[in-house]
């Protein structure tokens, strides 16, 4: 091109002119507006969270600073100034345990089968679609399922002393509730494993099981763990299904031991306590409710922190 450019034209390029062209401001109004909208979206999301946390901490600060130890280790009472959360914390802890023990292995197993073993047939696509639909089913519906199966039909196993209205029923119901979430997120993590990694494994004569165990799962582990955290947080925060499987909303005797042999007894959990207290009149209950919400948030954050540490550990191993 340079050769064909007339010499006169080359000579016509004036540095000052070039400078003006290069430094000239293009007015990019649409771009600026778009950026402002995006910042606004982020600000709105953060503001909601900030207001919520601020309001709760503010309202509950009296309880949290005045009698935190008593609040965490006490039982449900009729007076807001004496009530404690221990029974609710225990219930929520075991619900988390049930989720990890049941929903995690079953969900990850189902995802591995669907992604690594099942051939991509019409049937597997149909199953996939239905699992996605299950994740959108309202939680009350799962509560009814839990009531019908774990409380009514299997009551003699899940809680002989409580007619089935036990932590076992509640834990299993919530494990089923979050199962689709675990399957979907684990499937997505497995789908993100590069095909070349599988080929490398098969190429040196590894079996499907060896490729899955040694390469696919370690690579997908961070993503799978993230999904489990989401599921755990969801399970710990659900109230509606627990009401249906018979969580105690009023006074509860016992329910403070961590002893697993008491899992068949009547129970309560943090979200139940929060919804019950929120309905009671007077500023003292309001304070106690806010304090309980703060405690639940901290519990969920702690559970998340553990999972995030695990995820970072596996991510580092992935190299």
């Amino acid at each position, binding site marked *: 091109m340079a050769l064909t450019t007339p010499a006169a034209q080359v000579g016509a390029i004036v540095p000052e002119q070039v400078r003006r062209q290069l430094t000239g401001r293009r007015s990019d109004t649409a771009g600026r507006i778009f950026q402002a909208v995006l910042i606004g979206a982020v600000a709105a999301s953060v503001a909601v969270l900030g207001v919520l946390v601020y309001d709760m901490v503010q309202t509950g600060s009296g309880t949290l600073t005045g009698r935190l130890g008593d609040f965490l280790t006490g039982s449900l009472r009729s007076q807001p100034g004496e009530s404690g959360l221990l029974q609710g914390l225990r219930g929520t802890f075991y619900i988390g345990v049930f989720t990890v023990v049941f929903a995690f292995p079953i969900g990850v197993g189902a995802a591995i089968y669907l992604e690594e073993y099942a051939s991509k047939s019409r049937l597997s696509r149909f199953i996939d679609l239905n699992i996605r639909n299950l994740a959108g089913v309202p939680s009350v519906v799962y509560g009814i399922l839990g009531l019908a199966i774990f409380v009514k039909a299997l009551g003699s196993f899940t809680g002989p002393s409580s007619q089935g209205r036990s932590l076992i029923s509640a834990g299993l119901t919530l494990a089923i509730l979050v199962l689709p979430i675990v399957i979907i997120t684990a499937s997505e993590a497995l789908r993100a494993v590069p095909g070349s990694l*599988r080929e*490398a494994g098969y190429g040196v004569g590894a079996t499907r099981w060896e490729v899955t165990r*040694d390469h696919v799962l370690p690579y997908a582990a961070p993503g799978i763990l993230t999904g489990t955290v989401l599921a755990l947080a969801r399970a710990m925060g659900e109230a509606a299904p627990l009401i249906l499987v018979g969580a105690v909303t009023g006074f509860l005797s016992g329910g403070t031991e961590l002893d697993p042999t008491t899992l068949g007894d009547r129970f309560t959990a943090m979200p139940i306590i929060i919804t019950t207290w929120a309905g009671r009149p007077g500023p003292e209950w309001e304070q106690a409710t806010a304090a309980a919400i703060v405690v639940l948030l901290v519990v969920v954050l702690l559970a998340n922190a553990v999972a995030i540490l695990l995820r970072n550990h596996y991510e580092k191993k992935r190299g």
Partner: protein
Amino acid sequence: MTDAPMVGSMPTSAPSRGGATVFDVHDVSVHYGDFRAVRDVSMQVKQHQITAFIGPSGCGKSTMLRCFNRMNDLIDTARVEGDISYHGVDLYDPAVNPVEVRRRIGMVFQKPNPFPKSIYDNVAYGPKVAGAKGNLDDVVEQALQGAALWDEVKDRLKESGMSLSGGQQQRLCIARAIATDPEVLLMDEPCSALDPIATGRIEDLMVEIKERYTIIIVTHNMQQAARVSDRTAFFTTEVSEESDRRTGLLVEFSDTDKIFTNPADERTENYVTGRFG
């Protein structure tokens, strides 16, 4: 040791007298669902030779290569018709275990794909899944030496295989493939992601190790085929009239020298002289 590879030195080494037949391919077609990727391929691959597959994109040469270690099994819709025998044994006999096939017939892929593990573990993985017990240090060293990588990595075997350069990663993949002591190495455009210097090293390596292995290489680079291979197969595509879809087919399979200097088929001549493709 073998001589340093020289361009065009092949005729002196009595081409195509490689000895025993490793693969006997007879009328093989491969389908993906109802799409026919390659049709009616027949050829014989001889021991201790480098066989190159060349041809334009989409001509089925990679598909064909993946038939030799049953890598196509991993694709649900893939279907292989015809006969491929390995030392007289039908590779697609239902009794044949593809895992055993892949231990004897190693593969190096287009894009270097080391495991996200240490250099040592990358090489030791194949022997481990094949049941090797105890200390694999010697196996790892031999494989890395075989792939001409030992001197560069011997002091950092615990580092991730991902930390190596592209050319080193590909040699690591070669080391990983030869660590299981295979008889055949399948190489699917092993140099396409590498610079000319790394490419040269891999080509030297192929010529060096062909005394121990039988190598089939798919390449887009005709000079590469001319430099390293003993026999060359030229594939091309044809467009089916009724479905308007492309199918690959084998046009000519002959000594490399003949393919590049005196091809029998006009399509081969057009391709190797750069008039097509």
